[in-house]
């Protein structure tokens, strides 16, 4: 059973030989970028560079997937936002949005999506990159991509401060905007599917229980998420950052194939709550363990994640590129050794 069969089998809930180690979020590493001689700022803008870089984490460490893009700005850019890739930065800086599309409350009602959004910004480039990555390592591993959740996208195109307050004061208005964001996300997800991705992660990062109440998550955030997820035909994973124990049931109700959580989630409790049948990924601390922890901490965390009941060893966030190669190897090796025991 190779990595591709293992991951696709997992999504179909078939019997597989062991827990896989992969993710639906960013995972390129400095070791990979340096090996190719590319600059971080450049790989966001070039299909060939992006695809080659995305293949390196599998090639160097055996990480069981290939995932693109690397940044979080694809949808907003296709809607008309300018992005900043920080071309002159010495270190690694992820692209951000330069200018909002909505500047005041009134513009929430007047905003529309460009008619040909699937051809704008880097969406065509992403299609090409996915095809290149698939041709390169698509026989060995599953190829994934991600889109934002409607609330997180809304927080990029207008002031998050205003969006949060209006979620409380004028929930109807925000609900209408989120529904439009869902449409935008569906357009992008469909393009990724056309290019041949095997699974799509929906990253509703901003709607964590650290920020919004479980009640608001259920009433305001979940409906547009459900809309997006219902339109994704490949397996889908819903990821929410931060505290999520009080919303995992609502997350599952939005209909994804699997849910993804980070280290703040008590996964043993989540497993108990959702039962044996639910696919639960994540919980592996992508920074404090994988980047700054020792090899032994990486190994013990992998074992703990598996013991607590995850179906995949899956870092709960983008892997920070400066991750020590030894830690990546330790994560893969430990999953390999321990992942079949449960």
């Amino acid at each position, binding site marked *: 059973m190779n990595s591709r069969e293992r991951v696709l089998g997992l999504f179909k809930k078939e019997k597989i030989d062991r827990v896989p180690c992969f993710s639906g979020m960013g995972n390129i590493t400095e070791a990979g970028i340096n090996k190719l001689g590319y600059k971080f700022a450049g790989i966001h803008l070039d299909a060939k560079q992006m695809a080659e870089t995305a293949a390196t984490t599998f090639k160097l460490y055996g990480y069981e997937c290939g995932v693109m893009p690397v940044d979080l700005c694809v949808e907003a850019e296709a809607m008309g936002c300018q992005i*900043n890739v*920080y071309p002159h*930065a010495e*270190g*690694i*800086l*992820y692209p*951000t*949005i330069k200018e909002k599309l909505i500047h005041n409350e009134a513009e929430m009602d007047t905003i529309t999506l460009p008619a040909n959004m699937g051809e704008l910004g880097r969406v065509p480039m992403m299609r090409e990159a996915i095809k290149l990555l698939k041709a390169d390592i698509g026989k060995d591993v599953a190829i994934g991509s991600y889109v934002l959740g409607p609330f997180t996208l809304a927080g990029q195109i207008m002031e*998050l*401060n205003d969006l*949060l*307050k209006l*979620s*409380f*004061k004028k929930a109807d208005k925000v609900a209408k905007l989120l529904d439009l964001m869902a449409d935008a996300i569906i357009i992008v997800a469909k393009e990724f599917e056309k290019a041949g991705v095997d699974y799509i992660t929906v990253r509703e990062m901003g709607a964590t*229980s*650290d*920020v*919004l*109440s479980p009640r*608001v998550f259920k009433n305001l955030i979940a409906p547009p998420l459900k809309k997006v997820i219902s339109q994704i035909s490949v397996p889908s994973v819903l990821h929410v950052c*931060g505290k999520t124990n009080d919303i995992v049931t609502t997350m599952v109700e939005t209909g994804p194939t699997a849910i993804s959580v980070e280290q703040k989630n008590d996964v043993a409790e989540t497993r108990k709550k959702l039962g044996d049948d639910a696919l639960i990924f994540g919980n592996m601390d*992508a*920074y*404090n363990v994988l980047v*700054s922890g020792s090899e032994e901490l990486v190994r013990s965390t992998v074992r703990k994640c598996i013991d607590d009941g995850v179906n995949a060893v899956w870092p709960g*966030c*983008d892997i*920070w590129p*400066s991750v020590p190669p030894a830690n990546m190897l330790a994560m893969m090796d430990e999953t390999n050794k321990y992942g079949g025991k449960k």
Partner: protein
Amino acid sequence: MADEARKKEIYEKLRNGVIQYDEDACREGAQEALDAGLDANEAIFDGLVSGMEEVGRLFEAQEYFVPEILMCADALYAGLDILKPHCKQMDLGVRGSVVIGTVEGDVHDIGKNLVKMMFDVAGFHVYDLGRDVPLDKFVDEQLKTDSELVCLSAMMTTSMVGMPTVIEKIKAKNPDCMIMIGGAPTSKDLADKWGADGYAEDASNALKEAIKMVGFLKKLRDEKLNKK
């Protein structure tokens, strides 16, 4: 001068105005405090800040979430804008200036703004660099303003990793400057490892940390002066 009962009533109005995110009540309460000849500093601390402390408690108890806090902050500022021009030079045992901003690569500034609010009420002079701030700008601004404190904020793990560079540069040029890091992905371990003097996941912790640090700094300077 107002009697005790009237004073209590006004402070209660300010406090509840903040807790119930009622900007009008805070404006009215602030004006009533001035009309009654109450001390503006006292009205800020026993009214507005006392309300914000309760908001912090409600947040910890998960009764309030970030949208509510932002509305409470608006209410606090509505009162503060009226009271502040009438403040006498504050003597809280701490006075200082602070450089604050969100590090380059991060466009999230809600946490930073809440921390800034705490410095505003405590009477600090705040140099707010905004968000997505190039790392060298923190270093330059600290040197230019000779601020005792620099606060670096990051919401995302992906932008937090620029922090150690700034800390190192500032400490190299000005070892006495205290540095506080904040934001969801930061931790005490990281603060220790990177040589920061304090860390705060959230705004209410940040103020406590900041006051502690400025107090410590004052002590350090006093000791140095005594030696001379």
